């Protein structure tokens, strides 16, 4: 799956990377070819349009990153949009509910529901050690119930005994009852295939869903599906509310567009893919890996990530030098706040940085975190340049003026000043410790292109004194062992809530940071 799409896309995008500069027309042309490639891969037209529009819009708002060609930048954007379209995290089947947990399998005729039912049962039984019961509610296709019974024998999973002439809804109730009485963990309900415009059959499956209250309702769809994928997915989603999608026949050389379309129009994750006729030919779906496979341009993507990290590392390096001298003034604090705001406000380049995503979500989950930053920034912006450089001169009169100018209270101004003092003191203390500051400055971008986080550990160009191990620890948000301890005076301001965050450009290293952010409970 995705092979031909991958070939087409890399062909289109390769051309872009070879150009020194790009015009809008170049991008438009590239997007036309991307559209073509996606359509040929059976991605639904509306999804394709949405995709190319988004990529174009992102490209328009994009900043220049040095050492990255415009084409590479576009590839990164395409990659990110692909990941967004596929969903970023794998979503396994969820069994966290009171047993017996019902899983309802639905889909068109011939999509592979019965085989998939048996594969899931096989996996849950053997890998997850669950007690599983399967029941076929397919009274329409000749020998469908018999088929599931045989599959049960082959996979050694119990099946509900067949009662000839019983209707689907009655079978469903009997299955639930049997699962309860038999102490099963999971009950898999295989249903007959149906077209979405067959109202009677859609009503039937809706009634089955109501009666069995399944924890998962899985839409089983053929990876070879064309444009109809959107109709089918939308219809099942709106009528039943599916919880996930299983794609079958992914081992065929279909182009896999259905995966992109269905996920995009329903927002439901692709949970599993069927990759063969054997019982264990069922795999988890990893969107990020798939996106990478589709694009086949992992190196360019990480190159852009690194370069993006380095931009901010440059700024960070300047900052570090200043701190070393103990000259961290209010203007610097304002710059820091701006940086933080950028993170919260979803910036193009910043958003790409490794580790920043985490930080962003931490910010997002802090009520008023962003508002707080804005107020603090406003306070500083209401100061004169001189006041920012020399906070000492701020007397009561000046503070009242600043408070009025920024629409805050004098107490808030005081609080900010106190926090700034604490930070500056701590930095001075750190600055005396030449070893640590030197190393930090080194990390902050003085070590060449691959010094930024995300660079290959041990890639050879790490700043002197920083071992790959240290880098790893820094990424995890800890001060590396072997580095001098930071002073932990009582007044040391923490950067609460920003779990894995830190100074932009440090990709997750903890940094004595911003005051005033409300603490967030872990």
């Amino acid at each position, binding site marked *: 799956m995705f092979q031909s799409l991958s070939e087409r896309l890399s062909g289109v995008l390769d051309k872009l990377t070879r150009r020194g500069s790009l015009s809008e027309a170049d991008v438009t042309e590239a997007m036309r070819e991307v559209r073509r490639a996606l*359509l040929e891969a*059976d991605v639904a037209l509306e999804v394709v349009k949405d995709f190319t529009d988004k990529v174009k819009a992102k490209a328009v708002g994009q900043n220049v990153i040095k050492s990255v060609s415009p084409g590479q930048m576009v590839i990164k954007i395409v990659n990110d949009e692909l990941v967004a379209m596929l969903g970023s995290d794998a979503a396994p089947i969820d069994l966290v509910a009171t047993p017996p947990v019902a899983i309802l399998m639905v889909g068109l005729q011939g999509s592979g529901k019965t085989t998939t039912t048996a594969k899931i049962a096989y996996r849950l039984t053997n890998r997850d050690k669950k007690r599983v019961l399967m029941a076929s509610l397919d009274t329409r296709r000749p020998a469908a119930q018999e088929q599931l019974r045989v599959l049960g024998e082959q996979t050694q999973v119990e099946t509900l005994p067949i009662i000839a002439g019983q209707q689907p809804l009655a079978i469903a109730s009997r299955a639930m009852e049997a699962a309860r009485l038999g102490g099963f963990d999971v009950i898999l309900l295989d249903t007959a295939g149906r077209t979405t415009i067959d109202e009677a059959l859609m009503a039937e499956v809706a009634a089955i869903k109501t009666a069995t209250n399944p924890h998962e309702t899985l839409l089983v769809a053929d990876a070879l599906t064309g444009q109809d994928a959107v109709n089918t997915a939308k219809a099942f989603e709106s009528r039943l509310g599916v919880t996930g999608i299983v794609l079958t026949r992914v081992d065929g050389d279909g182009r896999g567009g259905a995966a992109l379309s269905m996920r995009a129009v329903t927002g439901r994750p692709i949970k599993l893919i069927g990759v063969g006729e054997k019982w264990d030919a069922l795999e988890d779906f990893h969107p990020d890996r798939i996106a990478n496979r589709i694009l086949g341009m992992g190196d360019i993507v990480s190159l852009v990530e690194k370069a993006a990290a380095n931009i901010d590392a440059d700024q960070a390096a300047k900052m570090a030098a200043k701190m070393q001298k103990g000259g961290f003034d209010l203007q610097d604090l304002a710059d820091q706040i701006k940086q933080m705001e950028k993170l919260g406000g979803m910036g193009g380049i910043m958003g790409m940085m490794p580790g920043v995503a985490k930080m962003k979500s931490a910010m997002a989950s802090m009520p008023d975190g962003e508002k707080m930053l804005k107020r603090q920034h406003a306070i500083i912006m209401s100061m004169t340049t001189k006041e920012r450089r020399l906070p000492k001169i701020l007397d009561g009169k000046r503070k009242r003026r600043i408070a009025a100018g920024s629409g805050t209270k004098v107490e808030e101004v005081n609080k900010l000043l106190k926090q700034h003092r604490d930070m500056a003191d701590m930095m001075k203390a750190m600055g005396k410790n030449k070893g640590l500051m030197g190393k930090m400055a080194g990390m902050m971008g003085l070590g060449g292109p691959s010094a930024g986080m995300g660079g290959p550990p041990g890639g050879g160009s790490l700043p002197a004194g920083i071992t790959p191990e240290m880098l790893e620890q820094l990424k995890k948000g800890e001060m590396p062992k072997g580095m001098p301890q930071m002073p932990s005076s009582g007044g040391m301001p923490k950067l609460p809530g920003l779990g894995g965050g830190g100074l932009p450009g440090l990709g997750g290293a903890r940094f004595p940071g911003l005051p005033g952010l409300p603490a967030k409970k872990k």
Partner: protein
Amino acid sequence: MTETPKKSGIMGRLFGRGTATPVVEAPTPVPQAHATEVAVAAAEPRKNWLQRLTSGLAKTSAKLTEGITGIFTKRKLDAETLAELEDVLIQADLGIETATRITAALAKNRLDKSISPEEVRAVLAAEVEKVLTPVARPLIVNGNHKPHVIMVVGVNGGGKTTTIGKLASRYRAEGRSVTIAAGDTFRAAAIDQLKVWGERTGAKVVSGKVGADASGLAFDAFKQARENGSDILIIDTAGRLQNKQALMDELEKVIRVTRKLDPAAPHDVLLVLDATTGQNALNQVEVFRERAGVTGLVMTKLDGTARGGILVAIAAKYGLPVHAVGVGEGIDDLAAFDPGEFARTIAQL
């Protein structure tokens, strides 16, 4: 930190690389019309019944006028309309290449001729129909071979077995005797499924053991069909993806074995195509034709939302006859392939 300059458009900042490329700002969509509409609605005082009635009537007549002027204001086919039509075709799975070719042909044939919006879809349908008409050919079973051997192939779940049941039913209704070979010895209960169809249609079903060699079974069934004087032998096969070498080899073997009894057999090889299939269907045709000597097509599941437009691309590229279409799961849900109707569905008429 230096003052960040106001963000400009990409082409200026990212792609211009310092050159004076004019900055193109992404147009911010301003839902103006919408906003005013809402505002007006909100400001409007409650209407009395007469006002409501007249405004309702006004709306209706406006619509009528629109429709009538639409008919009379013919205009030349413009690029925008053509792009729209191309989209319609793409959404029916014709594939971008075939869609472009058809809209281009439409534009050419209609060059300098005016066309009303109402006509556009009909013209599109006509253009599609042109491609399909030559391939609309029924499956002819003359009495030249006894039995006339029809082998049915395709990917998993496409509708092979069901189509066999429907075909058998039709031949039986014509008074012919039919034997079916349960050649899917792989899938669970495939044999039982076919036996049900045998009961429904009065066709004789020859089956072996699950897991038995499919070619051996086909050979046996052929012999039995001869012995019992059947007019027609239909061989069911297990579904297989065309990229599985071993399974395609197995299919070749089934054919080789039937040729031992009649060098001309199988007389027809039907490829069953699922209407929901996208561009992969082209490859299915290509590979099954090469490996199994496909002579004709049946498209199934046209009773759903899929329009099966890939058939147009297949017709254009391979010219293989389309013998019938499946329009449901019932025994009578097999219809002759009607290119006109098919084309109109594709054009969403």
